């Protein structure tokens, strides 16, 4: 009986972790409520540099991170090979890829401290000091 319950509990936890949303967050003091996916894409690719007069600092998670893979696939619409070729072009014009932070916690802390920064985290890690500007379903 306990074994079955434990299995069900693990399955429930896994489905919660796999499901849910990725939220794009910005400092709560920035006067922006929502942005469409198209604008998020431009910000991540550094094609858009400002928001309400603020210089934007897009943030990324490490290349092997599962959220990053989903963001590349669903927001950028690119696979890793396409992403790297895109940044080759930008690099040779002096534009570097977004700053990479090691964890979602680091992204949260950075966004809270730096007003123009935009990062993404799992919705489960959201707290009230961050403002959500775009939601992406994980599945």
């Amino acid at each position: 009986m306990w074994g079955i319950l434990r299995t069900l509990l693990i399955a429930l936890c896994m489905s919660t972790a796999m499901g849910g949303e990725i939220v794009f967050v910005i400092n709560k003091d920035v006067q922006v409520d929502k942005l469409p996916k198209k604008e998020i894409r431009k910000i991540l690719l550094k094609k858009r540099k400002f928001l309400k007069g603020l210089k934007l600092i897009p943030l990324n998670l490490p290349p092997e991170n599962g959220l990053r893979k989903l963001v590349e696939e669903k927001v950028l619409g690119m696979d890793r090979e396409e992403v790297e070729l895109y940044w080759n072009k930008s690099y040779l014009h002096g534009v570097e890829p977004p700053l990479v932070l090691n964890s979602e916690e680091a992204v949260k802390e950075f966004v809270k401290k730096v007003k123009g920064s935009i990062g993404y985290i799992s919705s489960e890690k959201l707290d009230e000091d961050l403002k959500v500007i775009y939601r992406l379903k994980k599945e």
Partner: protein
Amino acid sequence: MGHAARFIVSLLILAASVWAQEGVKYVKGRGLKIIPLNMTIGGYVSLYYQKDKNLEKFGAEDAALLVFGKIKDRIGYFFEIELDDFYQVVNGKERVKRKIDIERLYLDFEINEYVNLRLGKFITPVGLWNPIYINILKWTTSDPLTAEYFFPQFTTGVQLYGNLPGDWRYFLFFQRNKGIDENYNNFVSKWIIGTEVEKDINENLSLGFNLGKFKLKNKPETLTFWGLNAKYQTHLLEVSGEFMYAWEKEDYLGGSLSYRLSYYLQGVYRVMPKNYAVLRYGFFRDKSDHSRYRILTLGWNFRPSYNFVIKAEYQLRERSEFNKFLASVSWLF
């Protein structure tokens, strides 16, 4: 030792002295980051081979060093020097060139989303090909003729650029001064004025239009050019094309007008990961000397790593004696 050589040596000493310090790291294909100075040092190298009926040559096409970074939050700089064709073997004869050229040198002022200012020597922001003329960025070793005979590839002056509502982008550029390393350009100009306007129709399709005029230095010709370009891109396929037209006042022909036009259509297909097949058709016609070229290029582009590319192509020309094979290897560091 020239100024540029002294600068390189100083830069290398600087890089070496900060290498072991905190806040310095090398990222493959993205340069050496010197975080305390907000500076990146990187570059690229290309080797090539070319063979046709009368000519066989190989060598180092270019070796470039880039330095860029931020002086302040909204003020950036970019500097690129290049050893161009510094070692070649042409039909068995060795040629060595030891000239360092300043390819780009500019300051960027980011004012807002709509207006940004660039001052110095920069790549002329015209068309699809010219902004990506660097070997590692191109799908083929060769360039289509639209990129060579219609406008100066570099401008030394002022550029205003930015994004406009409705997914529009614009570039305005002016030059009315001596160019930096002005002979390192396809045209040496007395003055240049021009614009490029681009529109993203959606994530896959973008269109562009350009218009400009320039006066050749120490020559009577003034050229006016305009062009159209389009690019369609999906995961596996990229189709792009450009059309350029220029008319030219030729005083030595009694002030009469001459024209030249060129276009290309290129398809790139990702056959398998890291492997791309390229097919390009290009046309060029110049009324002044009645020349006409039609070139069909078949190419292969292999990228074992994002910062390393091996390319090979075969050009079929109207007169088969001018058919050509080209290959190159490029490394971005």
